[in-house]
């Protein structure tokens, strides 16, 4: 796959019994871009994310990551392959400190075997020191290093969202899926978030996000896909999507 697609969804369908949550969706996410997925509530956006990350594998169709079929792959293997995600309703490890949350993210990039851990071998100690250092760097990167030793649940709301992004980055992903990262943010926080997404992009990670806030979506994404009732109704640049009559209809209803 040399056309620059990091992630390719090909005729992806997800059914829950009789309900078709995602119906025949096909699109590419290209390397080095910010790609946005928008749509009204219940359109199937998060279901699509769950399909990509293996939490709820798609019923049919294929998900291709860097030229490799990953539909049906276990979540932890998907993470290891290089796809990380955040959750719409924050899912941090609440009673672990911010640093520990990030260390869990590093889990799949660590080599210490059980034996090393039991006997605290020099190799294990070195690795622990290295990942602790990297965890602190990541906390600085997202700007919450002053809460490093606080419990995740005690962080302010914005801090928790940032911590989730840092934890996802700790898995060293090449594709980062953000599920409504700006939900509940103040305008100021939204601007900071957009800056952070820019920084993540610069570090070489492709960003694929779900977002409701049009300002954020239009501001940072290069291409947009619009879902409505599980169907893909539009795809294109922000300007194209904005003027698409079907999109306007889905969001605002038909004009009578």
């Amino acid at each position: 796959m040399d056309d620059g697609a990091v992630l390719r969804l090909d005729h992806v369908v997800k059914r829950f019994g009789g309900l078709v949550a995602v119906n025949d969706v096909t699109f590419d996410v290209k390397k080095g871009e910010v790609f946005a997925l928008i749509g009204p509530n219940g359109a199937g956006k998060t279901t699509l994310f769950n399909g990509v990350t293996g939490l709820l594998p798609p019923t049919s169709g294929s998900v291709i990551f860097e030229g490799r079929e990953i539909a049906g792959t276990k979540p932890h293997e998907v993470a290891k392959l290089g796809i990380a995600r955040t959750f719409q309703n924050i899912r941090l490890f609440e009673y672990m400190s911010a640093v520990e949350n990030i260390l869990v993210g590093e889990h799949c990039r660590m080599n210490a075997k059980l034996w090393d851990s039991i006997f605290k071998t020099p190799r294990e100690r070195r690795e622990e020191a290295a990942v602790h250092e990297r965890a602190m760097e990541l906390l600085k990167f997202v700007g919450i290093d002053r809460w490093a030793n606080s419990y995740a649940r005690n962080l302010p709301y914005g801090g928790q969202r940032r911590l989730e992004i840092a934890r996802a980055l700790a898995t060293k992903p090449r594709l980062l899926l953000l599920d409504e990262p700006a939900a509940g943010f103040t305008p100021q926080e939204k601007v900071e978030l957009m800056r952070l997404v820019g920084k993540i992009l610069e570090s070489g990670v492709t960003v694929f996000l779900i977002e409701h806030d049009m300002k954020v979506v239009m501001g940072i994404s290069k291409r947009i896909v619009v879902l409505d009732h599980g169907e893909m109704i539009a795809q294109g640049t922000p300007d194209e999507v904005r003027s698409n009559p079907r999109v306007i209809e889905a969001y605002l209803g038909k004009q009578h």
Partner: protein
Amino acid sequence: MNWLRKAWSTDPRRDRDAMVYIVLLMFAVLFPLFANVISGGSPSFWLSFMADGGVYMLLALGLNVVVGFAGLLDLGYAAFFAIGAYTYAFLASNHLEVTPLHTSLHLPFWIVLFVALFVAACFGVILGAPTLRLRGDYLAIVTLGFGEIVPRVFKNAAVWTSGVNGISALDTPQLPFWIQGPWSGDSFAFVTNLKIFDPFGYYVIMCLLLVLAIIIVRNLQNSRMGRAWAAIREDEVAAAAMGVNTVQAKLLAFAIGASVSGFAGTFYGAKLSLVSPENFTFVVSITVLVMVVLGGMGNIPGVLSGSLLLYWITFWLLPGLPDTATNVANAFGLTGLTHTSGDFPGIGEYISRLKFLVFGLILVVVMLVRPEGLVPSRERQQELKKGTHEDTIIEDVQAEVG
């Protein structure tokens, strides 16, 4: 010596765990001397009593990995204890001669210790595998079933285990070689295959096993795997999405927990020189679980002190209550109370019937006073404050400075 100075200068209010470790260590070292003094030179009973207590501490330590670290409620933990004990019984006695094998092995205690560890770990995985998709109450029911099945198998597979009679006359642990001298009350001599009959020997072995188990479990807690367990306990879906192989981590928790109880089982069998299905009932599982919860789930020093306290209550305080009551009655001149009269069976017998009521009351009171356990982990303490301290309190002192 540096670590000693560090441990000494630690402010107990800041590092309670270190303090508990030091107290436990000093207790372990000083107990034989203390027992010698209070028993007037024949401390055997006390040393034997504490060595048995160590079995429960080991069990609690192992169960803590499953319940405290990984958050998997296990109600059938005694099964692994039984498996460890029976492993020793099979491998270190004449018993196999009366089974269809007609030949017996006499492996040394020290080797069986690790064989039992391995066997129990395998059964941990076997039990873990079907429960992987279950959590909380549902998992508890399945493990409860396993805990009931294992002793029953040992009871009913009489051809192999001689059923309810159990297996007796197990080998006494031996040291391969030993130098005798005044320290053991003998003249100088180099002996081989020294049999350990002395309760002090068992006490020392138990202390060594405990230290070994504590180090291993502690190292695991502060490692990659310990964090994976904590992550699974907090949010399994998020843990999987962050690249934690939840299947592997849960099976490993079961295996590590089981292997510690394999240790305990081997020691128990060797010391008692007898194993019987009656020794591994549901009551054992529940007692160990209560030790873990009451001591402070997920926190090793808490679990150790909890198991020690509960062991003392169930095996010393409660059995001694009737005698104590009789003595008190006599001391106050109420000798009439100590005899049977009509429906009243005498105060000693009366109190002994109330034993479990007292036990229940103690548990209720402790859990009301310290719901998070005697020496709780930081997270457990926080969790229980959840209702009262909502929102965004920054617990860390450094955070406010930074």
